[in-house]
């Protein structure tokens, strides 16, 4: 099982690497097109500012590589947002894998604090990787100021100010707005399910 975490200088990848190591994997960090193409599954992380991250993807050619991948690809947080069509953050076009728009949270009451930071519940789960029937409540850890709108590709919702896409799925592409690597045993299960899925593609 060859797992590659795309390392394009956008944010912290140590936590994702640690989480995969905890489930017995030995992920590689790489920005090399050949290595990424050969992987059984690919994790596309991202933290920070969208337009700066898109610029890094363009300058390394990853912007054309990622949408062409055939193995399971999991975008996390900003990674998921960059897989969408457009984001209001820096007004940039993303990779267009999910034809969804990313917008900024606008508080409707002064008690609402942006960024959306903390544990929130998932609902409307219809996902191949997110457990919806475990009996335990589906809480995951979020940190973000922008959100993907609900769309036909939404595979789990969460609500903060309004309902938004906590996860997206389309073909071999998966995206999660939350941080599975920081979401306790429930988050670990999601990573395990994603990796399990990859085995079917081998």
């Amino acid at each position: 099982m060859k797992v590659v975490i795309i390392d394009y200088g956008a944010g912290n990848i140590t936590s994702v690497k640690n989480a995969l190591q905890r489930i017995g994997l030995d992920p590689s960090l790489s920005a090399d097109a050949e290595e990424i193409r050969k992987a059984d599954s690919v994790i596309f992380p991202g933290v920070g500012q969208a337009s700066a991250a898109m610029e890094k993807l363009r300058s390394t050619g990853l912007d054309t590589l990622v949408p062409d991948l055939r193995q399971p690809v999991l975008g996390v947080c900003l990674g998921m947002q960059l897989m969408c069509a457009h984001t209001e953050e820096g007004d940039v076009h993303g990779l267009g894998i999910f034809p969804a728009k990313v917008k900024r949270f606008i508080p409707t009451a002064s008690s609402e604090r942006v960024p959306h930071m903390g544990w929130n519940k998932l609902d409307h789960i219809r996902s191949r990787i997110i457990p919806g029937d475990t009996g335990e409540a589906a809480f995951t850890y979020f940190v973000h100021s922008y959100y993907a709108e609900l769309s036909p590709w939404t595979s789990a919702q969460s609500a903060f100010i309004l309902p938004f896409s906590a996860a997206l799925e389309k073909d071999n592409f998966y995206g999660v707005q939350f941080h599975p690597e920081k979401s306790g045993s429930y988050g670990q299960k999601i990573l395990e399910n994603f990796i399990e899925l990859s085995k079917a593609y081998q």
Partner: protein
Amino acid sequence: MLTKRIIPCLDVKDGRTVKGIRFKNLTDAGDPVELGALYSRAGADELVYLDITASHENRNTAAELAKEVAKELNIPFTIGGGISDVRQAASILQNGADKVTVNSAAVRNPGLIDELAHAFGSQAVVVAIDAEDHGDHWQVYVSGGRIPTERKLLEWAREVTSRGAGEILFTSMNHDGTKSGFALEALQQVCESVPIPVIASGGAGTMDHFREVFSQTWCTGALAASIFHYREIEITDLKKYLIDHGINMRI
């Protein structure tokens, strides 16, 4: 709906947890990683580690701590204590911490907040503020509450927010260690002064104090140290209590 966060704080000196000696089921209560994992299993939503190692000649201690904690823990954690430049923060965050917290260094050099937010994003930058009630206003202190500054709480809270802080951790020096409850009024004033998440600190003594702070202020998290270390309150019980009282919690 976003849940409220319960955040145990662990003081770490020379790589060892200070306090936290009452845990029977720990093989090594001084091990910050093991203690953190225990809190995590009990339902802590997040952890804060404060590196209080007196000599900061060896500034790698915080980065080493981040590395060890990040290997084991699968919940978010923040590291603070003596961080005064971007390079130190970088080594801590690259080792797997989710956030860094700055306090005295930010008061002495407010530009540090801008630099940190620019380098790592606001979500990684927590500004801790220690302040004391001076009647008509709250005065900001540094160096663990020993040295008063010219700054007033609400002005400083607004300034750190405009400079890019992602979160404010406000400790009332009047309440800290008293177990008489959080500084509800001052906390709500901070919440109303800034649009970012505010964490309450100082004064937690009973489960009802947490209910008060979550129902009477807009704080999204509450931090405590000794009541958890000495097992005066179990996190599991606390969360059940809060849910029973209508507070939204992760269990």
